[in-house]
């Protein structure tokens, strides 16, 4: 151990002396290596950031991998049948979604069609009846202070399947008695709308004439860019019958059932739906995270291969400089052997120099990447929301260091072998 330590220290000290003696040459080696290491760091950082952004929102929207999802077919009584089966269960949650408007009655909402507030989808959603006749529910109405959003009524806590992240306030409590004033939890886009527009607290759901007064109790991040609100089904059905909520002619209603992988609910619901006349009932197991990861990994590999190519070219530069340097230092290495330096330490000296060069390059590349990301978040963050709160992934830093070390080994290996093979007699013949 002591011997190894002595050899290692000797190689590091002499390698450091060599770098100090040849600063310009080291700098040029670093320049040739810099683009390759930078490419690796940028690809890894980009992939890390993209993965985090994509996968984080993906789970919120599609659900955790392994969750089973069933879209209810448009058959009469299907909604009630599902609600009856899952009532009080935690291994399955039904989500009944439709459009709703909160604000002044008889006006066109500020975001017709439930569009995001900074986008205009160009008019309201058309509603079609049984005969196939479609109409604009806001036709002829004046513009007013109202917000249109998607409202989802839940039979239980859906966060076991879609891990919505709390932003403020609280989430729906399914253990208490339902209130007459339905409690709403907004997503961030809906919260933005209510911050921007002051609207009366009166909610109307498509197809229902009664206006109800909701109370907003919290905000979550749900990965949805549209304004969205979540409500307990039993609080909403105080005002709106479930049949209306699931009426396909009532305007954009849809019902989804999310289940744990091993729940008996699946078989019961399928049997009930078939009993109600549904012919095509299919259950999908969510696997989107893995699919997305596979896609991202493929992209990452393609870019890493390109970065690796640039790195190899950089390593070739280091190799070239290393060979030239060893050629110039023949007498030094022969002399070092003469004073008892083992061949392995001579090889270690050359490798230490190229490895240190690789490490310095990695540090520079990581520093540039961190600074560039910081600058991007400061200057572009306000206009590019995906850049907000983005941090440099540590895995990219590790990749940069590994790339630097690998390039150091690739560039230093052959010169190291040459240095170790220099005959001592060189000093005798000089």
């Amino acid at each position, binding site marked *: 151990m*002591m011997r190894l330590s002595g050899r290692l220290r000797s190689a590091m000290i002499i390698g450091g002396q060599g770098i100090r003696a040849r600063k310009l040459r080291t700098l040029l080696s670093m320049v040739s290596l810099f683009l390759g290491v930078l490419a690796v760091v940028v690809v890894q950082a980009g992939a890390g950031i993209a993965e985090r952004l994509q996968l984080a929102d993906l789970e919120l929207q599609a659900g955790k991998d392994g969750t089973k999802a069933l879209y209810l077919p448009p058959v009469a009584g299907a909604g009630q049948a599902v609600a009856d089966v899952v009532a009080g269960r935690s291994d399955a949650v039904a989500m009944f979604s439709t459009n709703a408007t909160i604000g002044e009655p008889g006006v066109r909402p500020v975001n017709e069609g439930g569009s995001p507030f900074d986008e205009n989808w160009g008019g309201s959603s058309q509603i079609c009846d049984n005969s196939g006749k479609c109409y604009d529910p806001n036709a002829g109405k004046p513009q007013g202070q109202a917000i249109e959003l998607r409202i989802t009524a839940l039979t239980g806590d859906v966060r076991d399947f879609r891990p919505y992240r709390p932003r403020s306030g609280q989430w729906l409590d399914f253990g208490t008695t339902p209130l007459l004033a339905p409690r709403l939890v907004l997503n961030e886009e809906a919260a933005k709308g209510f911050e921007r527009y002051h609207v009366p607290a009166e909610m109307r759901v498509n197809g229902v004439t009664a206006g109800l007064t909701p109370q907003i109790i919290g905000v979550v991040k749900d990965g949805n860019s549209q304004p969205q609100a979540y409500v307990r089904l039993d609080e909403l059905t105080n005002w709106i019958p479930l049949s209306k909520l699931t009426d396909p002619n009532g305007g954009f209603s849809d019902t989804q059932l999310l289940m744990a992988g091993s729940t008996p609910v699946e078989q019961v619901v399928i049997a009930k739906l078939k009993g109600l006349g549904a012919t095509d009932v299919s259950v999908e197991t969510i696997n989107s995270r893995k699919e997305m990861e596979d896609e991202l990994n493929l992209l990452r590999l393609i870019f890493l291969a390109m970065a690796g190519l640039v790195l190899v070219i950089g390593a070739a530069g280091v190799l070239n400089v290393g060979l030239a340097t060893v050629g110039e230092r023949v007498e030094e290495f022969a002399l070092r052997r003469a004073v*008892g*330096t*083992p061949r392995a*330490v001579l090889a270690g000296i050359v490798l230490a120099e190229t490895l240190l060069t690789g490490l310095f390059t990695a540090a520079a590349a990581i520093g540039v990447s961190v600074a560039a990301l910081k600058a991007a978040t400061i200057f572009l963050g306000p206009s590019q929301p995906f850049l907000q709160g983005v941090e440099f992934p540590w895995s990219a830093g590790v990749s940069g260091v590994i790339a630097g070390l690998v390039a150091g080994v690739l560039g230093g290996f052959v010169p190291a072998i040459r240095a170790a093979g220099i005959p001592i007699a060189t000093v*005798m*013949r000089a």
Partner: protein
Amino acid sequence: MTELIRLTGITKVLKGQKEPRTILDGVDLTVRAGESVAIVGRSGSGKSTLLSVLGLFDRPDSGTYLLDDRDISRLPERHAAKLRSSHFGFVFQRFFLLKHLTAAQNVAMALINGQGWQPRRERRARVMRALEQVGIEHLAKNRPTKMSGGEQQRVAIARALVRDPRILLADEPTGALDTETGSIVIDALQEATTRGCALILVTHDRDHAARMGRIHDLQAGVLSERAPALSLSGPTAQLPHVGGPAA
């Protein structure tokens, strides 16, 4: 005096040419601790090859090389490197100082060679002691480019002495120096023998050779002892001419 080195029938043949050439032909040599031996001879007579064999740079083709009664004729390279570090000090005609290092760092080079490890303070003390032995401790922080030839060679001697070697091998150490400076360098080398270090000096200079305890003449690979040692205080006119005609 303790016998340090015993060469018996050492032969070295240079191959790779049309005709193999015998460089060393049955060389016998014994060197004791504290003894100084000069090896003289014409250019190409095999002096440097003999020094290479003695310094474990090269292996003999036949014969035995005993160091402290241990046969090291066929020593593997890693063991040879260890012995070079622990037993030998080398001084060459060209000083081989690294220009980017100070005198002290050049001397410390022999200590930072992967053969064990010494703390920096201990290393520095040994380096300064070696520089003091050759009288140039005041030049410790100077780089070789700022030194004269004699000073550079004394740094090289300090480098050879810093590990307290038992055998000092010097290959034409005064070849690149004027007479007066060369004499100072020989003084520094001989000083080491007073501490029990054996000195083997390869030289063309008959005056310097005459200051050694024994003189061996190498002619066409054959080594023979020439003359008994003469006192340093003796008249140089009485010194035998070695290695060719007198200058």
